[in-house]
């Protein structure tokens, strides 16, 4: 029976060892699902807000009997009048109701006398989810006031449009598709996060962790080339990274292809298997890069904790372009696609939007990322050949 190669021995040991580690397993199997879960949650939230805006407005009113005409106007405009709670202000600030309309006793007197008649709208400005309701109620009340005002002016023989010095005409061009695209704009970064998280613990455990628990020195005495050690460990990290990526991609595909998105954001987006495969292939050089960066960091840090801190910080660096891309439309340009992690985020974004990826950029970006990754791995192997790997 032929002995397995040193590379395979190291690889197999790291995989088996880390499959028994709850932390590593959670990082590889559970965390990558958080990305798709987050997207699902946001779609749901957007859907709820839209739905609320379209249904009849539930408006608790106190003193409705003082203004039957106003109430009739509101009901004509899809407002369902309900009874107000006993203590409207407490109820709103506690969040039991979103808003309460209070019509005072003297409303009818002032109204009939042609004087300004006051109503109170009790709201909580700090609550975002109530904002659309409040806006609808305000617009209706304002509209009612203008309607009555116009009538009064006409009765006095004045053209009501005299009062309209400036007329604002709002044109809202936002579409449900636009909202969906904005949510999906997070996907490239979430994919990147899953790449970093999937193999992170293994990368640290097999380098900084190995030194911290004092098993590195005995390991280095074995007749194994240091490059074989590094490659075996890197391959194990790569496996966990791949699992995390596949999980995130499958999660995304399930949401986009099978979840009834149109019920929530009014639009349907699909991610065909070919797009999924393209994203996976785009991520291949990126995975090598990520594994190499993690092993590089972990081979220079003194402890598991220290390595973990630096690698977590590393995750924030690609977040900067991701955030910029989410807010501003970034045009692809050569220097951007050459940056590892940035280029891939751009490409994935283009695929998700169904746009064409420029072939030459894709090749250049992938080759650069892969090149940097391999160079980093060579540096890690060099580092393992020095005495420094043991003592710091």
């Amino acid at each position, binding site marked *: 029976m032929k*002995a397995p190669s040193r590379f395979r021995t190291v690889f197999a*040991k790291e995989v088996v*060892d880390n499959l028994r580690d709850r932390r590593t397993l959670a990082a590889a199997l559970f965390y990558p699902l958080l990305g798709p879960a987050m997207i699902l949650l946001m779609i749901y939230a957007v859907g709820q807000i839209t739905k609320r805006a379209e249904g009849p407005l539930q408006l608790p009113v106190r003193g409705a009997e003082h203004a039957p005409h106003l109430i009739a106007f509101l009901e004509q405009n899809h407002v369902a009048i309900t009874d107000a709670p006993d203590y409207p202000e407490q109820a709103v600030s506690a969040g039991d109701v979103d808003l309460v309309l209070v019509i005072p006793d003297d409303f009818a007197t002032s109204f009939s006398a042609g004087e300004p008649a006051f109503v109170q709208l009790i709201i909580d400005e700090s609550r975002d989810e109530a904002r659309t309701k409040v806006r609808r109620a305000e617009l209706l009340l304002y509209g009612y006031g203008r309607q009555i005002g116009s009538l009064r002016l006409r009765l006095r023989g004045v053209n009501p449009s005299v009062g309209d010095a400036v007329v604002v005409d709002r044109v809202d061009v936002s579409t449900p598709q636009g909202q969906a695209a904005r949510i999906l704009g997070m996907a490239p970064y979430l994919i990147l996060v899953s790449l970093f998280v999937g193999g992170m613990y293994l990368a640290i455990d097999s380098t900084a962790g190995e030194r911290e*628990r*004092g098993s590195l*020195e*005995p*390991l280095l*005495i074995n007749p194994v080339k240091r490059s074989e050690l590094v490659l075996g460990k890197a391959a194990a990290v790569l496996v966990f990274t791949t699992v995390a990526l596949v999980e995130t991609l499958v999660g995304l595909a399930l949401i986009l292809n099978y979840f009834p998105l149109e019920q929530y954001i009014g639009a349907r987006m699909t991610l065909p298997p070919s797009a999924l495969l393209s994203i996976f292939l785009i991520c291949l050089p990126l995975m090598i890069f990520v594994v190499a960066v993690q092993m590089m960091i972990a081979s220079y840090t003194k402890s598991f904790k220290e390595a973990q801190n630096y690698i977590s910080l590393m995750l924030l660096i690609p977040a900067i372009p991701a955030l910029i891309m989410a807010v501003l439309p970034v045009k692809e340009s050569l220097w951007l696609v050459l940056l590892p992690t940035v280029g891939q985020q751009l490409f994935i974004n283009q695929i998700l939007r169904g746009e064409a990826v420029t072939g030459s950029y894709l090749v250049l970006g992938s080759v650069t990322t892969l090149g940097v990754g391999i160079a980093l791995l060579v540096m890690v192997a060099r580092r393992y050949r020095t005495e420094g790997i043991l003592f710091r």
Partner: protein
Amino acid sequence: MIAFDGIHKSFGDVVALDGVSFRAEDGKITGLLGPNGAGKTTALRILYTVIDQDSGTATVDGFDTHRERQQVQKRIGALPDAHGLYPRLSSRENIRYFGQLHGLSGSELEGNIDELIGLLDMADIADRRTEGFSTGQRVKVAIARALVQKPQNVLLDEPTSGLDVPSTRAMREFIRRLRERGVCVLFSSHIMQEVAALCDEILVMSRGRLVAGGTPDELQRQTGKETLEDAFVTAIGSEEGLS
């Protein structure tokens, strides 16, 4: 066979080894005795290839530890000062990993593992994960892991440090058995009685230099002292760091 010729090694301004030469023969137990900081660990580390000397040559069975690192690694089994285990692997899996890294597999490997488990009296912990093991249990696994390929040369850095009395006796017995098999054993210790009881050859080190060397009888003769203990103290020039 281990040979150390004119080895110098400094860490920054600190001279760890200052022209050290010695031989350790097959079938003999050679002890490196000296207080902490004498250079024992540095000498062993050069021999088991994790650090390089600044000048001089170190060889194992004629292979240079620097230029023919892998040849040396194939011929040695070493218990370093740091002997951490993989806590999520069982004792047997820890030992098997190192055996496989030495190119062993199948029945040869499993046979060697079983033999060591018997010799070190560790059947009760063989299939348990090593997390939470006592110092004695850890050292046993670390020794078995280092020797699973049945090396001709064995290097042990303070093998009895932290062990209780029964474990220490068992370890000494184990080292004697290695000698019976014709193995070249080189071990370091700062415990005089241990070195005196176990060694065929004693090398006394102090401040990076070899200050005396020979069989216990020769040492007593060289220093003109009645007891071996006095001989050590005379050789080192102080009692500091010995026990």
